[in-house]
């Protein structure tokens, strides 16, 4: 295998994005995936960072959204209210692209705490714009490591709602959209259209369904046909390695 799992995750993420879409992204692999899409098949996609940045073209890797490296060559520098209010809350964001700490079978995302929220727990980062993006984007894509402690039967805290308790419960909470994909380093998941339970869409090359399921905290829906995930193309790898994340800060 001439690519890393993170590279495959980024390429798989990029593949979910279409030209002319408006995409709100967090830092890390979502940013790598979005920049890759924009430099390949989606040149007219708009990439939004909640801090108030549109369509920057970083040439140095930043440590996070607060790093001016990530704002370099932006076309528009504004505010939370502009990005998360007039674009996201107004309904103009096609795709929200998030990382996460824990996700459950209904795509509810936790970035707040691990442990027992009423007892002993460790507090982590909280929402930032994640709850807003998960609540207001037309659809949401998550990228995260494939580990039992991350893909959990029950998560400690719902920071950002997915399909809540499945079925119609998200719509009943007054929310449109919802998670469409969970991309891990072993597989790509979608959500069943009716039950809203997580469902395997593809497993990455050199992985098996058995291993994918055995390393998760809950059993996903498994369709009869599960293809392998398409591997990265050399031009995509070259872009990631030489231009988008040359310091390998996100691509381990």
């Amino acid at each position: 295998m001439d690519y890393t799992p993170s590279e495959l995750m980024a390429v798989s993420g990029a593949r979910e994005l279409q030209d002319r879409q408006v995409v709100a992204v967090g830092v890390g692999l979502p940013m790598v995936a979005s920049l890759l899409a924009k430099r390949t098949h989606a040149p007219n996609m708009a990439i939004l960072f909640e801090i108030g940045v549109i369509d920057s073209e970083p040439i140095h890797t930043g440590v996070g959204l607060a790093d001016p490296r990530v704002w370099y060559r932006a076309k528009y520098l504004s505010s939370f209210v502009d990005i998360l209010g007039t674009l996201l809350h107004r309904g103009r964001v096609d795709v929200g692209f998030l990382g996460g700490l824990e996700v459950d079978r209904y795509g509810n995302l936790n970035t707040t705490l691990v442990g027992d929220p009423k007892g002993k727990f460790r507090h982590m980062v909280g929402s930032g714009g994640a709850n807003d993006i998960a609540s207001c984007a037309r659809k949401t894509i998550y990228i995260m490591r494939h580990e039992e402690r991350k893909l959990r039967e029950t998560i400690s805290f719902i920071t950002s709602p997915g399909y809540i308790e499945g079925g119609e419960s998200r719509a009943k909470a007054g929310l449109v959209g919802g998670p469409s994909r969970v991309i891990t380093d072993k597989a790509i998941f979608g959500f069943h259209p009716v039950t809203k339970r997580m469902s395997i869409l593809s497993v990455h090359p050199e992985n098996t369904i058995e291993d994918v399921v055995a390393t998760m905290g809950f059993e996903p829906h498994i369709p009869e046909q599960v293809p392998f995930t398409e591997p990265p193309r050399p031009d995509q790898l070259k872009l990631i390695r030489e231009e988008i994340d040359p310091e390998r800060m996100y691509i381990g």
Partner: protein
Amino acid sequence: MTKRTSLSEAVRSIPSGAHIGLSGFSITRCAMAFVREVIRLGIKNLTVSQCVGAMDTDMLVGAGAVDRLIYGGGSLDRFGLLANVNAGIETGTLLAEEYSSLSIAFRYLAGSLGLPFIPIRSLAGSDLLARIRERAGAEVAFVDDPFTKDRWLVLKPLVPDVSIMQVQTCDEEGNSWIMGPKWDSGEQVKASERTIVIAERVVPTELIRREPERCVIPNLLVSHVVELPYGAHPTSVYREYDYDADRIEGYVEATKSRDAFQAYLDAYVFGVKDHGEYLEKVGGMEKLESLRADPVLGY
């Protein structure tokens, strides 16, 4: 009318127990010199708000100056978590009301516009909302949209007593430019009863009049102007200086135990008499020059 004053005098205008809004976002444009002076002067029992929790807030919490935090989550980006904030939440010594970025921004926006409440689509169906309703029930409510009859969550305006704004450039009256993305700074300043501006440089009003579209804070909102180069160190100020990675790593290391954090405060807050001595202690001109932003890159 000049509002120029010393950092110390500006800080002394804030009584213990006040609600302050801080300009930081993670590790950029944080009101660090301000926070060090608050700790030095022993101001306590503060309520702090900001959209995304940042190093300024974390240090204030670590020094025991904060009773209540109203924020949307936060971190020190890849340097680490807000360890002091998190410890305060975990042990229950800090009353944290945790929202999302937009819900805090909307609360400031409502405050800035004199709106009695503001509807929002976020938070629904989340444990954030469940927690907010338990802990701060009087700050969220539901209202029926009179036009569609849909039920909407509405938030109460957030109005700090004083906003502490780290900016690049202002004049002596307080008219201020903020370069780069502004996150919640504009709404926070306009919501707050008054603002203390801490600027890298104070320029003649004549220069402000040359590019009035750049002005983000009109002077009538400003009570004090403090000229304080490198006032955000070790965090960055766009187009002025980069974050000081070594010093942020040192801070993160210090937040790993109470003793280490006390030693950090003893060295960098109590052990120096003012911002000038602090800058000497962290490396002086040579170090600071190495952080100067490239004028093209902005960092």
